């Protein structure tokens, strides 16, 4: 709201210069966007949505009147007597959307405005049109009441009907645009058709121009949601709609017309042709709010002298009755934001000065519960991944539909936004991976080769809805660059190792099984499973990103990206927690045996491990695959798998015989189950 310094000074005495005015009002809740010091001087205030009463100079003058303890210099307008008894018939049909409608007919001489008027409008940022329109705008900018002038000769039947628009009804508004109306909007119509969208904009057909001699001046109070709906649906924001949709003063319509009439007379622009028509079917009672001194101190944390209450509230327009402890406060019509005691305490507080409120520290009566386990666990997960060389990324929760689709379960579609920012952000991500892949591609385009990124966040699966997940993406080298090392590109087992290590942090071991996913390369995709009792739950997915998907997102062909995604609810449910009991250290030495066997290439290592475990005595404490070899000496279609087995007795030192018996049993089981031959 552009407040003209010279104009404001006319309404209230202000001792300071423009910078002081801006600073003082700024500290009372009116943020200053800009100052123009050139005469007449303009301060552009950002008026918060709760203060439509300050979208005009009088409202700001009331604030200034409290600050500088100077009275308002407002005198009642000199309203001329009507020259006759011409009126317009007002048919207020939808009083729920228009509680008050005032209209008065004026005989006018349309002409350009005098310089003082058009200069002021321009300073306030409103374009001058002609003396009639300019006066309505002037009144709005001075005391807040939006008004509209119709050319009476162009109103069919010489009457105004305030009603909801008819479905399919159209209106060409003043800006020349043909608008389609609907039944949710309120219009001002004549006998045959809509002629203005109430509180938003008038129609071109009833616009006044140089030939106009008789006008109907409208000054009304429209229901804020009705104006808001009209303005939103038409995509039309005007000076009038901005004021009405925040709440208009029910008492202002007659005052607005009186003020305009006085100005018309003063400028010899026109005289009333008849009396004011005031349709005001249901008058609300006075709004009264109780204000207690004790409550002010309680909310602000600072006692306020009782005299400050009337000193602050009266110049703001409130009626204040009562003694030193408690007041009955009458709320003026223009203060639509004040409905309860807290609202009045805010008025007292902001003029008392927030700088005079002391700084205290609220006492703590009882200890807080420990933080939620999920927060602690996400923090641990983050630490584990960072220690594994992954940097934390944050990507958007909404993505392109095309990027999301490969990551949805077969046949499912990602959740759509109703009003996305653009097609690039049209759906909720079903996985964190598309965002991470894009982040990898972004880095790759900027000459970064070795990229490890992770993200912890929410994903939105079709069907199950919102859930927490962690995703990883890795491309480039498997280890840090060094002059002594030969570069090796990342592969499946690098990222699998990170997942194994990370899950071990939570005391979890998972099974890995070959799987198929639309976004993963065939033969290099797996699901991770955790088992508890008989339940087998999918913990996550792991594999090489399908090259076509990578290239689609701008990744160079021929480079491999490995990705993984974990369902955090599964991971955290499986977490053994911190309640562990320390095991005593082993008392007897362990014995290590290495064995190499020839088995079919397609036999999963997990099957070999399973056979070993089920055929070994309980003294077998660990199985580690340490070599996998194909080539010279190994028949086609077979591999040589080397496994290191560690045995230890719980109650005695194992003898060579003990271990040999165990090894014999294991080897014969491998031979029988898999046809494994020892090398």
């Amino acid at each position, binding site marked *: 709201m552009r407040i003209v310094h010279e104009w404001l000074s006319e309404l209230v005495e202000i001792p300071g210069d423009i*910078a002081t005015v*801006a*600073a003082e009002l700024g*500290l009372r809740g009116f943020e*200053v966007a800009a*100052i123009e*010091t050139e005469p007449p001087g303009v301060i552009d205030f950002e008026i*918060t*949505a*709760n203060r439509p009463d300050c979208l005009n100079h009088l409202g700001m003058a009331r604030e200034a009147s409290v600050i500088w303890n100077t009275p308002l210099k407002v005198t009642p307008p000199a309203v001329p007597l009507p020259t006759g008894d011409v009126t317009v018939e007002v048919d207020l049909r939808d009083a729920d959307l228009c509680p008050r409608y005032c209209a008065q007919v004026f005989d006018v001489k349309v002409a350009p405005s005098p310089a003082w008027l058009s200069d002021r409008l321009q300073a306030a940022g409103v374009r001058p049109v002609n003396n009639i329109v300019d006066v309505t705008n002037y009144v709005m900018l001075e005391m807040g009441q939006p008004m509209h002038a119709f050319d009476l000769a162009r109103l069919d039947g010489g009457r105004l009907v305030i009603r909801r628009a008819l479905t399919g009804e159209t209106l060409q508004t003043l800006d020349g645009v043909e608008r389609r109306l609907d039944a949710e909007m309120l219009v001002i119509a004549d006998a045959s058709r809509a002629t203005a969208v109430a509180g938003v904009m008038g129609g071109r057909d009833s616009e006044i121009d140089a030939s106009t001699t008789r006008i109907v001046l409208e000054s009304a109070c429209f229901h*804020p949601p009705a104006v*808001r709906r009209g303005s939103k649906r038409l995509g039309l924001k005007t000076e009038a709609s901005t004021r009405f949709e*925040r709440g208009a003063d029910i008492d202002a319509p007659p005052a607005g017309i009186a003020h305009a009439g006085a100005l018309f007379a003063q400028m010899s622009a026109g005289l009333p042709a008849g009396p004011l028509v005031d349709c005001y079917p249901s008058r609300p009672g006075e709004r009264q709010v109780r204000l207690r001194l004790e409550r002010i101190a*309680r*909310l*602000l*944390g*600072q006692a306020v002298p009782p005299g400050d209450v009337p000193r602050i509230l009266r110049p703001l327009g409130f009626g204040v009755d009562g003694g030193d402890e408690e007041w009955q406060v009458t709320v003026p019509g223009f203060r639509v934001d004040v409905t309860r005691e*807290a609202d009045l305490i*805010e008025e007292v507080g*902001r003029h008392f000065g*927030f700088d005079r*409120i*002391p*700084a*205290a*520290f*609220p006492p703590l*009566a009882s200890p*807080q519960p420990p*933080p*939620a386990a999920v*927060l602690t666990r996400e923090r641990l997960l*983050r630490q584990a991944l*960072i220690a*594994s*060389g992954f*940097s*934390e*990324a*944050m*990507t958007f*929760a909404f993505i392109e539909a095309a990027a999301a689709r490969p990551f949805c379960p077969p046949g499912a579609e990602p*959740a*759509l*936004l*109703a*009003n996305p920012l653009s097609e690039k*952000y049209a759906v*909720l991500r079903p996985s964190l991976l598309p965002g991470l892949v894009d*982040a990898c591609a972004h880095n790759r385009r*900027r000459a*970064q080769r070795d*990229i490890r990124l*992770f993200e912890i*966040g*929410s994903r939105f699966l079709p069907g199950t*809805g*919102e859930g927490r997940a962690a995703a990883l993406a890795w491309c480039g080298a498997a280890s840090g660059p*060094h002059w002594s090392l030969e570069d090796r590109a990342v592969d499946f087992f690098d990222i699998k190792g990170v997942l194994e290590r990370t899950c071990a942090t939570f005391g979890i071991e998972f099974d890995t099984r070959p799987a198929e996913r639309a976004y993963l390369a065939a033969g290099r995709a797996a699901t991770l499973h955790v088992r508890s009792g008989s339940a087998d739950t999918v913990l996550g997915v792991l594999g090489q990103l399908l090259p076509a998907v990578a290239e689609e997102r701008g990744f160079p062909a021929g480079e491999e990206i490995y990705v993984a995604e974990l369902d955090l609810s599964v991971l955290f449910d499986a977490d053994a927690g911190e309640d562990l009991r320390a095991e005593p250290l082993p008392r007897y030495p362990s014995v290590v045996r290495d064995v190499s066997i020839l088995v079919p290439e397609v036999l999963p290592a997990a099957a070999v491990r399973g056979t070993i475990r089920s055929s070994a005595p309980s003294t077998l404490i660990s199985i580690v695959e340490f070599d996998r070899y194909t080539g010279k000496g190994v028949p086609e279609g077979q591999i040589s798998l080397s496994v290191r087995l560690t045995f230890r007795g719980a109650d005695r030192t194992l003898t060579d015989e003990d271990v040999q018996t165990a090894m014999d049993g294991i080897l014969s089981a491998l031979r029988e189950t898999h046809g494994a031959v020892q090398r």
Partner: protein
Amino acid sequence: MADPGQALTSLRQQFEQELTGARTESDLRGVRDRYLARKGGLVSGLLKSLGSAPIEERPRLGQLANTLKAEIEAALTARLEAAAQARPPKGTVDVTLPGRQPVIGHRHPLSLLRERIEGIFTRFGFLVIEGPELEDDYHNFEALNMPPEHPARDMQDTLYLSSPVRSLAGTAATLLRTHTSGMQIRYMERNSPPVRLIAPGRVYRRDQFDLTHTPMFTQVEGLVVGEGVSLADLKGILTAFARELFGDARQVRLRPSFFPYTEPSAELDISCAACGGRGRLAPKPGMNPSGAAGLAAPNPGMDPSGAGGCPMCKGTGWIEVLGSGMVHPAVFEAVGYDPERFTGFAFGMGIERIALLKWGVEDIRLFYENDLRFLEQFRP
């Protein structure tokens, strides 16, 4: 035939020169071979040549030659021993080559800052709670004193879902939360006062991208409710927070503002670090010979002139950090708290904005590009 005596002198000079010139052990060994080799060595050559000297001179020359030989041997031995001692021990490495660094990732700056903020409030006795990113209209708006058609809904342009999606809270959500306040409502629905919590998380607004806006950002909201909680408590907690995060030298002020869910409402400003709260940058040394530099009075409000105004705070001397206020009684009524008995305060801040201010990041979009050159500037 040269004079043998002169030959002796010039050989000594020549040797001394070569010995000085020898830098490495192998240089020294070369010198030794050239002078002392039994066959063809310069010293033995000299000795041989003495045969041609007059007989009465021979004993004296022979003595001189042997002295020279002994000197050469001693000098070389000393240098060679010194060189051997200076020789690096077996297995010596070049310690100046770069080491093999374990690969360690980096924290995202927003996550780092969020943890820092959580740490401060945890010390102040606040509980940290998390909640769904998808919300229903009631928890995002209505319970917060923003009924349908409320003009303040425009302050938070909302992204809606085409059809309801199940949220983390198990409810049918219709929108992406515009703030984390919904979690505070849920908490109050389930717990009686006293309440002292912060609710960090991602929030969504239909804002176009620019230097300071992204349609998704990270918020930390706080709520304190009890008997007798006042605006003074709000000021105390937030001042302590701002000083800890931005430094003790910062001035802090509350400025009246508007939020539908608080009454009274206030913005928290901190004094601008770039201009020290003066609103204009100090003139460069030497630019102002009159000595007026540094005399600029603290600016109470707005510096109207653009010239010389501080670009960081747009000449005001203050920077807006967060919004706050006393919880609106309508919010208490919505969750079943008695507004006569309980009072409370709430606040909310965007972590991105704090990060821009704290680290001097110029473009908020950097936080979501995940460029490693940016991320790696922050601590692991």
